[in-house]
């Protein structure tokens, strides 16, 4: 049973964008092929099947379904049948489409080239930009991600074993958000440790100029 998508908090939009932009078109294609393995279907049936089996986390518009089917037909992976008496147009897999669907299960997804991570990019720039409080940047991000995580946790609790598909997908989002917070914590600790080290090194240098001078000259000799 699928929860009404209107009851889902807005954070799913965030996740949806993330998923669909980051190679999402690819997943829709593969998902439709996987559904068609179970037999011929028409467009609305495929959309309903997609949403039900993924817990309605990523609403799919019917235009997207037909665009994808058109491309699959062009690439020789699906076959479009004549409209039946109810004017429904059914699609079925070709042998190539079936092979592609099977190939999907045995091919890891997204593990080869790391996708660009906007949060990492921002924090990396913050850490190296003069006058930017990187701890504040990290905390702003952490608070927002935690808030999303709270929403997801609540919604998942409310679903309470009534919708396995949604819970599975919600868990995926929850673990991703957790990973982001862990990374932010880790980065904050690392940066503050580095700042401590720099401070101590600065103090040592100020306290013992003779040593640092000799080190410098030694470095100069080495180079």
């Amino acid at each position: 049973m699928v929860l009404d998508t209107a009851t889902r908090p807005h954070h799913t939009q965030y996740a949806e964008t993330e998923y669909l932009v980051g190679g999402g078109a690819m997943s829709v294609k593969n998902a439709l092929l996987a559904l068609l393995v179970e037999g011929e279907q028409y467009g609305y049936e495929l959309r309903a099947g997609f949403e039900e089996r993924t817990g309605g986390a990523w609403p799919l518009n019917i235009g997207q379904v037909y665009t994808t089917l058109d491309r699959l037909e062009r690439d020789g992976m699906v076959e479009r049948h004549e409209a039946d008496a109810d004017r429904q147009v059914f699609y079925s897999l070709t042998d190539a489409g079936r092979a592609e669907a099977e190939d999907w299960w045995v091919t890891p997804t997204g593990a080869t080239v790391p996708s660009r991570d906007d949060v990492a990019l921002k924090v990396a720039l913050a850490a190296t930009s003069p006058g930017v409080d990187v701890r504040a940047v990290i905390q702003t991000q952490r608070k927002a991600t935690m808030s999303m995580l709270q929403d997801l946790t609540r919604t998942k609790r409310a679903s309470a074993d009534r919708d396995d598909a949604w819970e599975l997908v919600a868990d995926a989002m929850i673990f991703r958000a957790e990973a982001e917070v862990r990374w932010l914590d880790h980065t904050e600790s690392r940066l503050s440790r580095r700042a401590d080290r720099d401070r101590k090194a600065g103090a040592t240098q100020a306290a013992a100029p003779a040593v640092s001078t000799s080190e410098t000259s030694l470095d100069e000799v080495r180079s």
Partner: protein
Amino acid sequence: MTVQMTDPNVPVLSLRDVVKTYGEGDSAVHALAGVSLDVNAGEMVAVMGTSGSGKSTLLTIAGGLLAATSGTVSVGGVELGRLRVKGLARIRRERIGFVFQDFNLLPSLTVLENVALPLDLAGQSAAGSRSDARRALAVVGLRGRGASYPDDLSGGQRQRVAIARAIVGRRRLVLADEPTGALDSVTGDTVLQVLRERADEGAAVVLVTHDARHAAWADRIVYIADGRIIDEASSARPEQLLSGGAR
């Protein structure tokens, strides 16, 4: 002394400008540098921070296991700093429940005896304490397991026993320090579920954790760094998030 635990206008836990300093002079370490925090009945608050941020010290002080250097800690309106040793021990036994990462159950006692222990120590009659302990076990989903020994139980079950012990009798303040640390993620979720339900039924729960996924079960998240609360955020109540029949 009357303890106003049931007055809804009095926070179950209230910290005011709490400072905890170890050592003196130049070598002094400020574990807590002025922390104020209220936790109300029915509320679950997560305290997040890196190791060394002061989050565990905060919990230890809130539970009266450690005295603050300055500032006040009140449990149900009673200021812990004003109590003598005996009074403090009594309020800890009767009002505050602790849940730790490593369960802290006594292996030579049965599950029921472990849960009843705080009441036995408080001088409650054996019949009364057994009956309260059985009720607490039922609340955490361990009805009928009272005669088992801790070693006969799984990690998740042992932690639920620890929670039963933390809520037995009239205790309405549950302080949990990384309670899921030793458990796998699915079992950890069942422990969080039990803590969450305690809060939903009126307990005040403070959860110290570095685990974002577990902190997300709380109503409010308090971020602590260098012994100070640097930020805090409440989330919308579920009824605001979910319209209609989803809940």
